[in-house]
């Protein structure tokens, strides 16, 4: 039997029972679109989060004070064994390190003439612009000053600039941060949010100034960049060795980009898996639908099958025909499901343009693949049963 014959046989079998096959396809389509939709949502969530975290490049390592065997939020707590500016500066002596960003953050009131804005103040070094990929819209970022004795310069986030200065230029103006005078050397380009923090609302000052204003000795974190050709584990070992030499004990935590991505990956995969599991309940019900309809169809087409057998058709061919019918119905369902998904995508993207793509090559191939698999699975039993019908009994059944 040629492929085209098989196709036309399947076409006639399916079209003969239009209404019931339509309903079967509809039920299966809902199941498929539920699974692919949830898988796609989980997937784009993962992509989104990972891209948020990898936007700073993969060769970045974070060092936080405190050994995190007991807690998670160590950087912001008080400690007598913190990480100092001296530590940050000494890390620069490692050959592999291309730059360090000491980080200390908190809130402060920023005043310009009679305007006041309470916002987040971050103490960093000149290298932050490179490490965090901050783009400067006006002026420059913090200059490369002495680590412990920097000049009182400040760089404003775009929104903060707009709130204090409107459309006027701010370069060279003086603002007061908690009573101290800072000179504005630059304004950043809009960057958006990161982990719920609005980066455009922040003001960036030298870390040493930040430490003294917040009356702290310990930094909250050191971010450092290393040559991209090196292994992160090797680099982490180097830094650990260096800091233990300075501190005597390991009272800090090193998190490499790879470790962080691993953790995130685990969490996000769990979410994605849960989504797929919820969607597949519908798919399961839809598959039972295909199975029951095929079984009923077969029962109603006993004589046809008997006739085919009596005319000498092989069992294997019969199995293939029924399987083809099952897979065809499932594929129809899958395609309709994907079309629904595409429609959802189009509708949603008019309201939320920044939404990532739901209908991707991955979700489409997932939907089609699952359809074929389930079609074969649901059709297997009826097909096998059909092939086993004795021709006499089947013909007599009229």
């Amino acid at each position: 039997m040629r492929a085209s014959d098989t196709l036309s046989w399947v076409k006639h079998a399916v079209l003969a029972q239009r209404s019931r096959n339509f309903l079967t396809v509809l039920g299966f389509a809902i199941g498929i679109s539920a699974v692919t939709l949830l898988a796609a949502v989980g997937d784009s969530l993962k992509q989104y989060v990972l891209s948020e975290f990898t936007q700073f490049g993969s060769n970045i390592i974070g060092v936080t004070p405190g050994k995190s065997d007991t807690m998670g939020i160590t950087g912001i707590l008080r400690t007598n064994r913190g990480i100092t500016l001296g530590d940050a500066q000494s890390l620069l002596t490692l050959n592999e390190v291309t730059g360090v960003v000491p980080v200390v953050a908190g809130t402060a009131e920023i005043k310009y003439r009679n305007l006041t804005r309470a916002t987040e103040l971050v103490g960093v070094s000149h290298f932050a612009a490179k490490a965090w990929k901050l783009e400067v819209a006006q002026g420059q970022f913090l200059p490369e000053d002495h680590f412990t004795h920097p000049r009182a310069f400040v760089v404003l986030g775009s929104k903060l600039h707009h709130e204090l200065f409107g459309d006027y230029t701010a370069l060279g103006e003086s603002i007061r941060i908690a009573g101290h005078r800072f000179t504005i050397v630059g304004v950043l380009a809009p960057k958006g949010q990161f982990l719920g923090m609005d980066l455009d609302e922040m003001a960036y000052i030298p870390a040493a100034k930040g430490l003294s204003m917040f009356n702290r000795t310990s930094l909250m974190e050191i971010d450092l960049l290393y040559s991209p050709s090196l292994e992160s584990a090797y680099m982490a070992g180097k830094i650990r060795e260096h800091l233990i030499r300075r501190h005597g004990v390991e009272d800090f935590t090193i998190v490499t980009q790879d470790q962080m991505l691993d953790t995130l990956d685990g969490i996000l995969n769990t979410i994605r898996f849960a989504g797929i599991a919820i969607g597949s309940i519908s798919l399961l019900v839809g598959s039972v639908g295909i199975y029951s309809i095929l079984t009923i169809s077969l029962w109603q087409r006993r004589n046809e099958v008997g006739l085919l057998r009596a005319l000498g058709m092989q069992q294997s061919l019969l199995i293939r025909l029924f399987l083809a019918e099952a897979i065809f119905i499932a594929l129809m369902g899958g395609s309709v499901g994907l079309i629904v998904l595409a429609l959802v995508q189009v509708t949603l993207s008019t309201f939320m343009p920044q939404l990532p793509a739901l209908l991707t090559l991955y979700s489409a191939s997932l939907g089609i693949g699952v359809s074929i698999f389930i079609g074969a699975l649901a059709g297997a039993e009826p097909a096998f049963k059909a092939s086993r019908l004795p021709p006499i009994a089947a013909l007599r059944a009229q």
Partner: protein
Amino acid sequence: MTINDNIAFNAQLLIRHRWRTTLLMLCVAMGVSAVVLLVSVGESARLYVAREFSMLGSNLLIILPGKKQTSGGGIPFYGTTTRDLTLQDAASIRQLSGVDSVAPVIAGTANASVGARSKNVMVLGSTLDFLKARQLSIAMGASLPDDAESVSRNVVLIGSNLAQELFAPHNPLGKMLTIDDYRFRVAGVLAIRGESLGLDMRDAVILPVKTSERLFNSFSLFRILISLNGLTDEKTVISDIYALIKKRHQGEEDITIVTQQSMMQAFNNIMVTLTTIVGLLGSVSLVVAGILIMNLSLISVQQRRTEIGLLKALGASQHVVLTLFISESIILVMLASAIGLGFTQVLLLLANYWWPTLSFSTPLWAYLSAVCVALLTAVLFSYLPAKQAASISPVEALRK
């Protein structure tokens, strides 16, 4: 036709088509139990956290140093700002009417060691009121001294885990513990309460707040917990506190006050939304099951044309036939729902047996809504086939 007749008629039918009935019931039962299970997991998680919150008392305020005026809102959880919130601020807040107790907190990390054993621990400097506000009790020994806010005594309360790790097999009471080069006498051991809202007290130490000022060489409080006595309106107290701090901090209102209530509300909203979404996603499977019901009913109508023709020839009205077909689906769905709910109950019982802390419980509305949605789909999706059956002309059906 009485209801009894109706049930007897349909029971016969369902039994005759055993195979089909089983498949349909399986689908509906799966849908119903999926909805109930998903909703009850969401609800249990919500209730678990709500219980944790309510244990802390509903009239609790939390003051954080610092303020953010950003459009996105967000609380300054860093607790780092340019002007310290101090013990004196806390003491002045205590004078306000409507305030029952004030617990200043200094939080930090330090190395705690006994002999050769050492561990990195969370250090909380506070007062007796903190223990009361966080519902912490003492398993053995004494609590913090009454003058924790004014006198810097070297006594410490330790978490249960820490007592084990640093002192076992000895009794820790009265022993010396070194925290970052200062020596402390262990006054008491905290009772096990496990993780309370993300703060693991089993590995923490609690000192008098005055002592922690000295330990960390800082006067800056991390948080102030305030419980209200309920005599003055919460809003009034909050604005009073803002006004007081503004006066004390040279005209700057540089704190943020969060109420326990609002935190719980925010959390509740998130959880309810999540549970609803998940429940709705689960009920998609019920819709798919409904389509299957419709499909099989259509086939059944096709097969039973003669029977229906006979019924109508004997005087059954369109209405009776319609009722018969719809009630067939309803009976099936009710049976299936019962099976589904029974299955869910078994699963939840097992879950409760394995994870007793979460105590899974299903709200009544989850059962009701799952069954209602199932019944609704049954009626909706069997209406069309039933309509078709009812409109069969008896003469034509019988002539065949």
